[in-house]
């Protein structure tokens, strides 16, 4: 006991490593419960670089990190860090509340079901829908598959036509391709130079046998926001045509209302709104009812549309993330817009021949810039301490440059030079300033290395070069 008290007094002045070694000297101890836990009792972080071996019995067995300093994360469109408040909401379901939410007969099931119902309410509130319209899935990809293939196959007797855009996410395009193999007719609409859909072209493309129009709300590569209300109005004029939007990047970032925008179906992703990975949702309108053929057969959970035990832990995380997103939407949007402007102005004021891909009035957290005369992958490799993404061919497994940028009309060299900066809720001003400095340095360095830049400086027109093909 004396050793314990000495440790408690000394702890305020000593660092945690010494506490760990003291703890290892204790011979008769009880692990402290959560109610008694104070900050100073916590074991060392499993991620911290230590040269001393960890003596604490609580320390996780984790290899020491390779580098001492880690990169800044600016790839918010790929995924987002989980908000600590979301993790806190999930943890009870990862420890004691482990019941199956579909178990009707005991309290374990009831309390899990309660968590799931609350999440359903939060997600519904975020998009202005009714609770019963929400179906939980494993992510936006599953939602997209379920909706597109489900609606198409249910109505395949009379309706064989589907309309979508060339800039949609791969899972939407691939689902449509699979359907075209089954005999459906798919129209891939082109987009305008700024990435927006041509509304007249859309209206002209709707045929009597169209069953579904699928247009994503916010594009994941360029941040372009499609005019959902207008599209909804156009689709509503034609009976029997459903409007689906892939809102994975839009949820919690721009205001969405399924009734005001006449949206019948929507795909939602958890890990893009600071929630856990592996969960998402689909909004399937009930009034008027949208019918679709489910992909998963089983016990008939989720209105029969998505059988399978709900991952209550992940679902609760998604619900909490949705609740926070609704609460913080305005604050986040203001912060992210300011950071985005800072980033763009900071870069373009020092470097020229920079093009913004996509509508400048798109979502501010997604900034897609092309730096002419340098290549995307070399830029990413040269930016040592930043995590970014590029639309260049060299970064994709297929050696094809981004099809989204190609659909926007970008020439190949612009597509090869594109870099996507993703700003999120947790991005700070210092990180943006660091990225601006590094970007300017890197762009100048790579342009010094670039023969195209040299030619431009000398006044040679690049279009006139006779390239030898390989």
């Amino acid at each position, binding site marked *: 006991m004396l050793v314990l008290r000495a440790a408690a007094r000394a702890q305020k002045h000593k660092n945690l490593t010494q506490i760990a070694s003291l703890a290892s000297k204790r011979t008769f101890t009880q692990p402290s419960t959560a109610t008694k836990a104070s900050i100073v009792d916590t074991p060392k972080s499993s991620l911290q670089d230590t040269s001393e071996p960890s003596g604490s019995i609580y320390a996780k067995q984790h290899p020491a990190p390779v580098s001492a300093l880690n990169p800044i994360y600016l790839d918010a469109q790929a995924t987002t860090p989980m908000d600590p408040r979301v993790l806190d909401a999930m943890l009870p379901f990862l420890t004691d509340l482990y019941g199956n939410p579909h178990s009707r007969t005991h309290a374990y099931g009831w309390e899990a079901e309660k968590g799931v119902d609350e999440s359903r309410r939060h997600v519904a509130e975020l998009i202005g829908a009714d609770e019963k319209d929400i179906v939980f899935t494993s992510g936006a990809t599953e939602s997209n598959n379920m909706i597109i293939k489900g609606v198409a196959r249910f109505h395949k007797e009379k309706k064989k036509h589907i309309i979508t855009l060339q800039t949609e996410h791969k899972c939407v395009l691939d689902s449509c391709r699979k359907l075209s193999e089954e005999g459906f007719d798919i129209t891939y609409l082109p987009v305008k130079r700024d990435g927006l859909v041509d509304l007249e072209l859309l209206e002209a493309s709707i045929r009597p046998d169209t069953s579904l129009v699928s247009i994503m709300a916010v594009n994941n590569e360029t941040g372009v926001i499609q005019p959902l209300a207008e599209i909804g109005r156009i689709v509503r004029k034609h009976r029997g045509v459903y409007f689906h939007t892939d809102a994975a990047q839009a949820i919690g970032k721009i205001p969405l209302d399924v009734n005001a925008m006449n949206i019948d179906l929507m795909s939602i992703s958890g890990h893009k709104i600071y929630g856990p990975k592996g969960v998402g949702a689909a909004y399937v309108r009930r009034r008027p009812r949208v019918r679709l053929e489910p992909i998963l057969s089983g016990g008939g959970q989720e209105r029969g549309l998505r059988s399978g035990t709900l991952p209550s832990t992940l679902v609760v995380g998604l619900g909490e993330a949705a609740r926070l997103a609704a609460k913080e939407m305005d604050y986040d949007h203001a912060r992210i817009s300011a950071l985005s402007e800072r980033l763009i102005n900071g870069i373009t004021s020092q470097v020229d021949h920079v093009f913004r891909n996509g509508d400048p009035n798109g979502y501010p957290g997604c900034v897609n810039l092309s730096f002419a*005369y*340098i*290549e*995307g*992958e*070399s830029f990413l*490799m*040269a930016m040592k301490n930043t995590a970014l993404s590029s639309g*260049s061919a*060299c970064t994709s*497994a297929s*050696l094809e440059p981004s099809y989204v940028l190609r659909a926007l009309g970008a020439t*190949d060299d612009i597509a090869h030079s594109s870099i996507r900066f993703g700003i999120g809720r947790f991005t700070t001003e210092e990180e943006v300033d660091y990225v601006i400095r590094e970007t300017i340095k890197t762009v100048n360095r790579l342009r010094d*290395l*670039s*023969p*195209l*830049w*040299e030619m431009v400086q000398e006044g040679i027109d690049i279009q006139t*070069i006779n*390239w*030898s*093909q*390989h």
Partner: protein
Amino acid sequence: MKLQIRVDENGIIKEAKFKTFGCGSAIASSSYMTELVTGMSLEDAGKIKNTEIAKELCLPPVKLHCSMLAEDAIRSAIKDYRTKKSRLNVSPTSEVSSNAAAATM
């Protein structure tokens, strides 16, 4: 890729410089190429295979074409040098430099 070589009267490459628009592997391949050929004779430089570069840099299969580009660049540079030399009809004591640009779509 832009490759410049400076050749002395004995046909030895004294200096090589590069500029590249391309991914990290392309830049590395051309950079390594310039280091390889410095001090080599023109004949030896012409015999360098892209597999040598790929092996030294441990290029993954998807990046092999970058080393191909470097091989083509040095061959074009040598060809360009020889063409210029014969056209100028120079005396053996002076130096000729040449450059070549190669690109892939």
